[in-house]
């Protein structure tokens, strides 16, 4: 619940200030957003499990964003940027799915 409230506060702030995204961030923003969603889903899962930890949350989010962006950047340099983005998104989406499945099992006991 707390996670969702935080997310909503961020969304409201974003709508209020409508941040301009610099052009060079175009390729990394979607990847960062997916990494963020992954972190949020992981946080919700751990809150339900009762083993949430600020440190794990912050470090895993920042770590994933950095690694994902670095991979996409490297891919861009090698001319396989789009494919690298796809790979990163697939892995992160898989994690989101796993977290969502875990949440579902806990909440609905099914």
């Amino acid at each position, binding site marked *: 619940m707390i996670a969702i409230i935080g*997310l909503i506060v961020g969304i*409201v702030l974003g709508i209020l200030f409508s*941040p301009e*995204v610099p052009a060079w961030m175009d390729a990394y923003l979607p990847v960062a957003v997916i990494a963020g969603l992954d972190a949020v889903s992981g946080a919700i899962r751990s809150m339900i499990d009762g083993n949430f930890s*600020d440190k794990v949350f*912050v470090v895993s989010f920042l770590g994933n964003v950095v690694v994902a962006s670095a991979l996409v950047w490297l891919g861009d340099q090698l001319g396989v940027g789009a494919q690298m983005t796809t790979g990163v998104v697939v*892995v992160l989406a898989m994690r989101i799915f796993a977290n969502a499945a875990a949440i579902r099992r806990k909440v609905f006991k099914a």
Partner: protein
Amino acid sequence: MTSKNTDNLLDRLIADAQADDYALAGRPGGRHVGVLGWVVFVVIGVLLVAAFLQRQDVQPAAAQRRAELTQRIEASSARVAQAQTTAAQLRGSVSQLQQLATRGLGDDFAEQVQAVEAASGFVGLVGPGAVVTLRDGAQPLPKGVTEDEARVLDIDMQMVVNGLWQAGASAIAINGIRLTSVTAIRTAGEAIVVDFRPLVPPYTIDAIGPEDLAAEFERTPASEELAQLGIDYGIQSKVSQANEITVPASTANLPTRAEVVKGGQR
């Protein structure tokens, strides 16, 4: 890392990807969210909105630019049409002034000038002739013909025009654009372009010529080919005789730097 010890790369990848970071960290946790956690949640929310807004921004910008370009093209086309009308009017008055100026030089000379003017498309003409209308094939089309294939092409138009010249036409205009010796009939994209101006179907070809121009045209190979186009591709055509046809003056750029060569030699 999960304890599953598989050799399969894909299985291992999936197991790794699905690992629960919090459980693996092995730290005693709870449900409490600290300041840093809050900040990151808010940051992720802002990121979401930023990405969303960015996607929203991209398309309207492109559409707006497109509309601007369309407007500019339309404005330029209108200016061109206006300039061409003025040019035709000026040519008309030049022709009249020429007649006045050459009055003293003998009937022969005046007649020659008029003949040249008529042939070069310098003046508009009125007279008997034929009208050929062409339309893209409409449903139902012949079997196995797509709508793209049922379109009138520039080569079809060229064929009909050449047929009309062959039948004795002395002046031809397509959709009100006069043909001269320097007027091209071409394709640009999906449109037929005459004198660099795109045509909108249906196509009307006005030709001034002998009284029996339509009948003469029906005897040319072009007429046969046109009929065959109708059978093969569903292109609709109609040839009719007319007593009074108006063909406007050409707006094509006449060669202004050319000099008349005396005696056929330099």
